[in-house]
């Protein structure tokens, strides 16, 4: 039986996996690494960048506030006055838990995965609001390029510390690039503004011992896959069914792999049932096949919003592995 790491590699290189990769099993997420933490459910918290996030009681996640009082970036042309990257804490004590966790991982079995939330695109609209960010690409492109460069430099500085501290061989990086049905910006705009940034970021990781780039965008982004490949993404996590995942696998398998196709919104909801989870998992596995595909809820962590859903999907994947391999 292949280790979880070997099985992942066989899957994404077109080899001979002996079962489905079961969701996030191949990566051990080092959640203890210092990050710009978010509020807990029901709470409010200002991030180190000054962005105020709230997690409404009973809801599924956090939201940045952009009313006049809370918006960080009030005028893109004066972004240097408003946007100040936080210090990156490098002290041993702060990183001790992350280092200890990374040291405990059997790297023959799993990847040590650093996690980075809120990538470059999300940062632009977290700082200034979605509508303002979207229009600024047209109205103030030079300032947007400068802001993106600044955010990218911060990411690179954090990456350097992360690599020094925990020596990750995988990066799990969040940046939502679309809604359910389309990318937020056109491919040409994405190419102009974000491809260069991500080539720098993912290129830096790959030049410094990171073998595997897993990018989270639980959205439609099929039109951006060529750029994902160009920037060095190995696995797109969060691929929704609206992308026609089997077609993507057929078209791009071997250059990139796809992780998801089990839409969290369809499976992971208050009145969820094991039958729905099993049905959707089976559909995904049978339609997408054994190579270049990892069946997974589209949610961007190894959990579900409602207790038991993630585990139920995992059980279904195990059953399908027994049936299909």
């Amino acid at each position: 039986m292949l280790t979880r790491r070997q099985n992942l590699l066989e899957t994404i290189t077109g080899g001979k996996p002996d079962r489905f990769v079961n969701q996030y099993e191949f990566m051990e997420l080092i959640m203890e690494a210092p990050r710009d933490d978010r509020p807990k459910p029901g709470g409010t918290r200002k991030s180190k960048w000054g962005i105020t996030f709230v997690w409404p009681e009973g809801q599924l996640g956090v939201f940045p506030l952009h009313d006049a009082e809370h918006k960080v970036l009030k005028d893109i042309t004066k972004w240097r006055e408003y946007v100040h990257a936080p210090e990156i804490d490098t002290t041993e004590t702060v990183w001790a838990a992350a280092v200890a966790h990374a040291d405990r991982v059997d790297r023959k079995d799993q990847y040590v995965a650093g996690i980075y939330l809120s990538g470059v695109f999300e940062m632009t609209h977290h700082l200034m609001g979605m509508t303002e960010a979207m229009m600024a690409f047209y109205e103030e492109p030079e300032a947007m390029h400068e802001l993106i460069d600044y955010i990218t430099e911060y990411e690179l500085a954090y990456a350097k510390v992360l690599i020094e501290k925990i020596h990750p061989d995988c990066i799990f990086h969040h940046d939502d690039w679309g809604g359910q049905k389309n990318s937020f910006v056109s491919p040409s705009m994405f190419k102009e503004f974000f491809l260069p940034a991500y080539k720098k970021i993912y290129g830096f990781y790959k030049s410094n011992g990171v073998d595997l780039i897993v990018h989270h965008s639980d959205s439609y982004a099929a039109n951006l896959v060529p750029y994902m490949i160009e920037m060095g993404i190995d696995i797109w996590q969060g691929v929704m069914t609206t992308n026609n995942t089997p077609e993507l696998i057929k078209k791009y398998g071997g250059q990139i792999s796809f992780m998801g196709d089990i839409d969290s919104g369809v499976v992971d909801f208050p009145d969820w049932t094991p039958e729905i989870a099993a049905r959707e998992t089976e559909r995904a596995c049978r339609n997408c096949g054994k190579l270049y595909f990892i069946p997974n809820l589209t949610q961007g962590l190894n959990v579900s919003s409602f207790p038991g859903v993630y585990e139920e999907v995992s059980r279904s994947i195990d059953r399908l592995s027994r049936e299909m391999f």
Partner: protein
Amino acid sequence: MAILEEVKTMIEDGETKLITEVVQKAIDEGTTPEDILQAMIDAMSVVGDRFSTGEIFIPEMLMAAKAMSEGMDILKPLLVGSSSTNALGTCIIGTVEGDLHDIGKNLVSVMIESVGFHIIDLGVDVPTARWIEAIKENQNVTLVACSGLLTTTMPAMKETVQTIKASDLNGLKVIVGGAPITQEYANVIGADGYSADAGSAAVKAVELVKSM
């Protein structure tokens, strides 16, 4: 008329810096403000269709809406007393309680405004009571548009829609939308209409209000 085609092109292309000049030129050439407005509404309809089919993206739609708004600034003084502006009445729009997403709601808002509604935007996380208050506070409310992105806020949408429908407030239609919402769900909760995206929301809004 060539000038009206030019106005349409300026809106469709989101030419926020050039639109005022072209609208002024159209006025100077003797085109009626009503005809210019209709050309702008037609252009936004094209924009809505292109967004629905995935041909254009959020930035392009927002730029078109801004161009429309800039053009309206020139036209409005000439349309005072005309039945063309806000001809379809007032639309109360917001995101339902517990949900802080605003981009979908904002896109629907600009599209609905562009086809001739006066917009009252209640923002996000709007409790049911606030919807009712807003309908009572404003004149000629013909449409209520409820947005919600989360499965967990679907109950709040249901409560809002059913409270409005069960009230004695009439002469209005309720339209719903958002990622987890479907036509079936809209039917179940008693909404009058549903749309899958901002482009079709404007079309549906007009259809609903004109059917009253």
